């Protein structure tokens, strides 16, 4: 059961990670790094700016 659950979790898709139609490839990956840093690391945009 737990293995099955794990596989389902692993296959779960995150819609925010998809490239939008016509989105520039550099802008897309910039958006991805920001998104992951925000959602996984806990950085928000303002916080990232203060790093500079």
């Amino acid at each position, binding site marked *: 059961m737990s293995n099955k659950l794990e596989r389902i979790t692993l296959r779960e*898709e995150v819609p925010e990670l998809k490239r939008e139609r016509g989105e*520039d*490839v550099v802008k897309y*990956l910039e958006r*991805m790094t920001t998104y992951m840093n925000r959602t996984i690391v806990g950085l928000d945009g303002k916080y990232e700016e203060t790093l500079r």
Partner: protein
Amino acid sequence: MKVQLVNVINRAETLAQDRWLVPLNLLSLSTYLEQAGYEAEILDGTHISHEDMLGKIDGEIVGINFNIFSVKEMEKVAGKAKGNGALVVLGGHAATHLSRQLLTKNKNIDLVVRYDGEEALRQIAERVSTKRRDFSRIPNVSYRSKDQIVEEPVQLLDLTSLPIPNRRSRGINLEDYISNFSKIPLIGEFAKGRRPSNVQSIRGCNHACSFCGRIYKGGRMRHPEQVYEEDKMLVETSGVNYIYETADSFFMNKPWLKEVVEVYRKRGRLPVNYWALCHIQDIDWETIEAMKFFNVDMVNVGIESGNEEVRRENGKCFSDDEIFRATSLLGQAGIKLQDNYLLGLIGESQETIQDTYRLAKKVAETCQVASIRGFHLILPTPGSPIWAKMMQIPEFRAKYREDYKFDIEELRRDYLTHFCNL
């Protein structure tokens, strides 16, 4: 005779979190020069403004370290130094890979030192001090001769022959660096009570990651006694209690690691905690024991991608199982993981980005992750395998190979469009 060693940076691209790291590359050069009887001064762009730096340029030799973000600043410093009649010498990672382009395109640059700079710079200073302007037969040096670029053979130094970098070199105030640690927003409470400094006991790495432009292949170690002496000096003379070991993997060579442990055991452990970089495959019970012995409380590991195939394609040949085995060991030992990921590796697709997102979340379930773990965007830099792959394509070769100034966004876009499936 005065030698100035300048670290030029582009402030827009330099993170505040780097401002606590002393410029060990320049400190090693200045200490070596001081030992040979030359006056050396460091101007570190992470601590002084570009304008102040330009106002301070007055050395007979001006050595400049730069990266591909700080080309404009480097050109200004080189122009100012040349205008003063100084000998302008470039060195470091970027200069090593771009030596021909720099000497061909910028007449303000007299010499480029490739790879290790200590002995080359000493010999350059010796010749300048005796009014000689012939730099032939100095190891690692490149220079113009008539219409040609001459590259003297490369000699890598035995690290055990280098003195411990002097953190009191002219231009360096260690307290200024230490105080910047607590200003890193993400560090937060972690900074409390910590007086950190960085060291580097190994130059080079045994791996060949696609994105890495490091110039040293294979690890050269300092003597275990030197490692101890440097740490002890930091503790005793500067009250440092937290040491960041910036070797690419401090745990890469187990026989050497055992010798270091033995020295610490014999001479006495130091009241200090460590933070170190580590390769995921170097984490096993043996190295975990060493980490515990050294009071390592955080390791910085490049996982890079959540997709095994992408990792393999980019020189990170370890499986998901190996990752989880390693992170679980760290978890059991109570050592924090600072895991890093790189988006845009060769073969990256929207699906592999999903893999990376999921893997990073899963890793955090196996151990305690650091607040400064992070996701980064790839950039092909000269000297890296992905740069070499780009240069195999005639269009990119024509566009980038003969210059040292790049439009970073365009370079990134060219690479991503050609090597990823996004």
